[in-house]
């Protein structure tokens, strides 16, 4: 079992506020790792460090080490544009661009310039198929992405990310804005995606984490309280606080 991302002693600060405290985590390749915890516990902050999206916010700082296939990801010399190509991200609210479905999927590829034009059409179809959206949109690829439903938009955002051929997929509560049917579709999809990608998903729903993930981490007040196999964490938690949380005593 190979480790795709290795986080060691990661600290993160918003100005003077320390949002992550000494996080250690090994993220396994081709597995789904779910991160749970109450609001403000640092789980979303954590995945933002993995593609350095936190740099968009002024006054943030990360210390420690995140090794991604042996490269130090937090190193200033690591090219963040290339990094984000390899570690894709899907956000909480679907955020398609105000363009056609085709343009949305090919948005990254067209700008990276590393896939020849002749392969765009094929890439469009495979990306949409992988996001299990193809059959719903194949007849209206030139229509605006805004004509899709919320669940379809979110799968379009997944297709858009897959088209850039990432190795890791970060998902920040991707189903929290969706209805149960759309949520079920995305969960089904994740099961397929983990064959090719390493998935890290932040979720508010413990049931979701239990259903879909292989590994699970519980965050509380910026600390990683417990991390391990999902089965074990839910059936036999080692820490009292984890048990309190998953049995619904707080949070």
């Amino acid at each position, binding site marked *: 079992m190979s480790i795709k991302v290795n986080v060691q002693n990661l600290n993160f600060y918003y100005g003077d506020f320390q949002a992550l405290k000494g996080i250690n985590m090994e993220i396994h390749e081709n597995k789904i790792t779910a991160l749970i915890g109450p609001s403000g516990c640092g789980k979303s902050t954590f995945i933002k460090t993995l593609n350095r999206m936190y740099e968009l916010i002024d006054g943030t700082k990360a210390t420690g080490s995140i090794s991604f296939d042996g490269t130090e990801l937090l190193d200033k010399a690591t090219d963040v544009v290339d990094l*984000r190509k390899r570690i*894709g991200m899907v956000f909480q609210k679907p955020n398609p661009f*105000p*363009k056609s479905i085709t343009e949305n999927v090919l948005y990254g590829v067209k*700008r990276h310039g590393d896939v020849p034009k002749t392969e765009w059409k094929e890439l469009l179809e495979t990306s949409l198929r992988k996001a299990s959206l193809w059959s719903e949109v194949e007849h209206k690829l030139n229509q605006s992405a805004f004509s899709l439903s919320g669940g379809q938009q979110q799968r379009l*955002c997944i297709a858009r990310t897959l088209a850039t051929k990432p190795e890791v997929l970060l998902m920040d509560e991707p189903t929290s804005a969706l209805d149960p049917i759309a949520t079920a579709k995305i969960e089904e999809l994740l099961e397929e995606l983990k064959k090719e990608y390493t998935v890290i998903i932040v979720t508010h729903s413990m049931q979701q984490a239990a259903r879909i993930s292989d590994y699970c981490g519980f965050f509380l007040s910026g600390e990683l309280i417990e991390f391990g196999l999902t089965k074990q964490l839910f059936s036999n938690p080692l820490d009292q606080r984890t048990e309190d949380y998953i049995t619904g005593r707080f949070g």
Partner: protein
Amino acid sequence: MKTTKRHQRRLLLNRIFEWIFFSTIAVAILVLGALLFDIFSRGISGLDWSFITSMPSSRPAKAGIFPALLGTLWVILLTALIALPVGIGTAIYLEEYANKKSWFFKALNLNIANLAGVPAIVYGILGLTVFVQLLKIGPTILAGALTLSLLILPVIIVASIEAIRAVPNSIREGSLALGVTRWQTITGAILPMALPGILTGSILALSRAMGEAAPLIMVGAVGFVTFLPDSILDRYTVLPMLIYNWTSRPQDEFAQLAASGIIVMLIILMLTNLTAIILRNRSQQRID
């Protein structure tokens, strides 16, 4: 349901305010209507093709607006070429690159907003000192366009900043998270979304510039020109200048010519504003 006294009073108040607000807009419409009626009743008879294609003349019957019409087009096109790139570029820098917490950014933002309120004549004086005299451009189309650019830059910048700011942050994040550079994010996602707002603000600013005479008097546009401009370093006149020149003459015939000139001016302004609306609607449709 029984209507109480209190309820009836509220309904009455509701109706009274509806009338008050209607009368405020009625005042505006009446004044505008009177003005338009006056201008059209005086000017429409003098308006024909030869009025548009003739040179100004001291004999009112032969006088036309051709050099001023061309002058206006030259000046406005050149103003657009100068002010749009600079204004939109400034807005992009301020919104997408500048550190918003720095005092420099705050001071700059405040001053741009203030500059939008500076009287046009002040820009004329600035243009005279800097462009005409210091840079020795002389009283040419270029000097006029540069001066008008300064005048409308704050408006273009503020409108563009507002339009860029209205682009949701999630779009920015979505683009950057795909491993796309900042510049590609600006051209690929942010500008296309901000374009309707930028275009509307810019065209309205340009039509304001089209109606200005005061700053151009300062930088040496002439009221009476009987030749056509053929380079940006030519002397020139513009429609508002010619209209101003005609209204200051004692003969009634010239007042009629001025009215005809104003009608042409109004038509041009309406056409540009219409273009703004059409452009905005078209790019909005692309988004929705």
